[in-house]
């Protein structure tokens, strides 16, 4: 085994590490390095394989069974869990909600964040203070964000309804989280509150590298603020803009904490998303098999959105 290992390593030319070649005892060093490499990698690899890779493969396997989490045997049911998803109204509703969340929950923080970053960059006083302030919600635990927004939406005493009443829009006030027309959007607002600051910080950093002379030239040509932003500044921060968009986009398909804390997916399935429904299927209704199929769906959707995104980025380069 050892000689084979050494032989395989020797066959691979490594020009980058040519310095090592100066040593006369190269093969001995390599053998020693391979031994150390195994020693260094193995503990981490073991933990990772046992608690990530194995359960991941197991999810795929369970999705093909009708296991209920308790029974000794796991009956193979083929793709019937997947077929069932398409006839399940709650899954369709969850998927629809997820798509809304992905679209609005990505676009709005990015647009708001970009706008604020541009304002701060154009030389506002105390811009560091504003930057830190805007970033604060992003570092808060989502449980805390959910709890405080529940207070804000409180039907009787909540400041949201109080403000609406005081400006004469009392016909708009309602139990925002209990009304099936508004529940999802009310949670979404809390989600946007928690993410836009991240966009501000990343884009403000990117803006520091914008070539000011190009902006100056556009200004002399009579371009207004929006024209300058759209045609001169934004193209120069393209990669970072794509990056923040991708981070929010990919995370949005597995949104869970905020919805779980604020509405639990309710009322009914009004604010249900795939992650909360998967949780319920697997741990409330004990359908480990069906829940696993839903988990595979989330994985595929996240993966597809990541791939689409990487493609978009490549086109930019």
């Amino acid at each position, binding site marked *: 085994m050892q000689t084979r290992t050494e032989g395989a390593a020797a066959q691979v030319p490594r020009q980058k590490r040519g*310095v090592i070649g100066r040593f006369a005892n190269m093969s001995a060093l*390599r053998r020693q*390095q*391979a031994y*150390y*490499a195994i020693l*260094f*990698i193995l503990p*981490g690899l073991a*933990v*990772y394989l*046992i*608690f*990530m*890779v*194995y*359960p991941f493969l197991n*999810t795929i396997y369970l999705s093909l069974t009708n296991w209920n989490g308790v029974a000794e045997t796991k009956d193979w049911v083929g793709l019937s869990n997947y077929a069932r998803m398409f006839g399940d109204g709650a899954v369709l509703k969850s998927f629809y909600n997820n798509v809304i969340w992905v679209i609005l929950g990505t676009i709005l923080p990015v647009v708001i964040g970009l706008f*604020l970053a541009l304002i*701060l*960059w*154009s*030389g*506002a006083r105390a811009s560091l203070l*504003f930057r*830190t302030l*805007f970033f*604060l919600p992003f*570092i*808060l*635990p989502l*449980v*805390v964000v959910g709890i405080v*927004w529940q*207070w*804000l939406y*409180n039907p009787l*005493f909540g*400041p949201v309804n109080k403000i609406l009443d005081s400006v004469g829009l009392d016909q708009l006030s309602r139990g925002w989280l209990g009304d099936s027309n508004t529940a999802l959007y009310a949670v979404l607002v809390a989600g946007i*509150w928690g993410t836009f*600051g*991240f966009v501000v*910080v*990343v884009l403000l*950093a990117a803006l520091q590298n914008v070539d*000011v002379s190009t*902006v100056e030239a556009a*200004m002399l040509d009579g371009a207004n603020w929006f024209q300058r932003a759209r045609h001169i*500044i934004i193209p120069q921060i393209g990669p970072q803009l794509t990056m923040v968009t991708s*981070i929010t986009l990919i995370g949005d398909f*597995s949104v*869970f904490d905020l919805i779980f*804390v604020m509405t639990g997916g309710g009322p009914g399935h009004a604010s249900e998303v795939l992650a909360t429904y*998967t949780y319920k299927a697997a741990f409330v209704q004990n359908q*480990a098999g069906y*829940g*696993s199929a839903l*988990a595979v769906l989330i*994985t595929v959707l*996240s993966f597809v959105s990541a791939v689409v995104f990487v493609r978009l980025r490549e086109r930019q380069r």
Partner: protein
Amino acid sequence: MRRGSQQQRITSGTPNGTPWLGSVAKYLVLGIFAALVLYPLLLIVSTSLKDPLDVTANPFSLFTSVRFTNYLDAWTLGGFGGYFWNTIVVTVVTLIGVLTLSTLAGYALARFHLPGESIIFFTFILGLMIPFFSVMIPLFYELRDLGLLGSKAAVILPAIAGAHGFGLPLGVFLMRSFYMDLPEELADAARVDGAGEFAVFWRVMLPLSAPGVAVLAVLVFFQTWNNFVLALLYLPGTENQMLATGLYLFASGRTQDTELAAAGSLIMVLPVVIFFLMFQRQFIRGLTAGAFM
């Protein structure tokens, strides 16, 4: 300073004059967003200081009464003291685990020659694309069968493995790219001086990678401290409950002690905010570096 004023002239205002109008609009927008961010934060602080009677009378008006005993009550009666220590233990052990294992593996993958190392690296990277929900269900039964369910290890081990997104896959990725950028000559110099491979790593390379380790540590701290769903699923008992789930159970429970929920929120948030103000730079660098795959 000079550059700032030059920039201001170029990027604000309109070409035809009236720059003050643009300036007023600018601060109006900033002010509105600052208020939108600040109000909920102040609401937590103010509610955590309120008298219970005052909470029922003026639930969401700011600073109508001030008393500090709510924190004491939340800490003892609300059980947040216990949750706090559990969260510290889980976070610290997870941190040590992720940092140790990913510096070792990242260094080996960057510097040692091992057949199949690219396959091992790719396997680790795959973890960055696996959302928690795709391991959540079997992991529950796996932890149950190992007898770990309800113990701190039920959160720590999956967190180290990367179930909450900031474990070994991210750590190995970050540390490997960090070690690739360090000059090999330093290691060779140490080898010439007779240092063994472990000493090269421990004495030479690890200290040089301190900035990278700091970035990783800050990310892992935030993610583990704030994590909700791992504790929700794998700590069904109350004994080892963490702050996120403890707070959720308390706030959604039958007793509506809003002022104690607020005090509990603050107990959870305060270390995060302090940590953030201390390590802002590392945090932002890590978030952006992790995304540039």
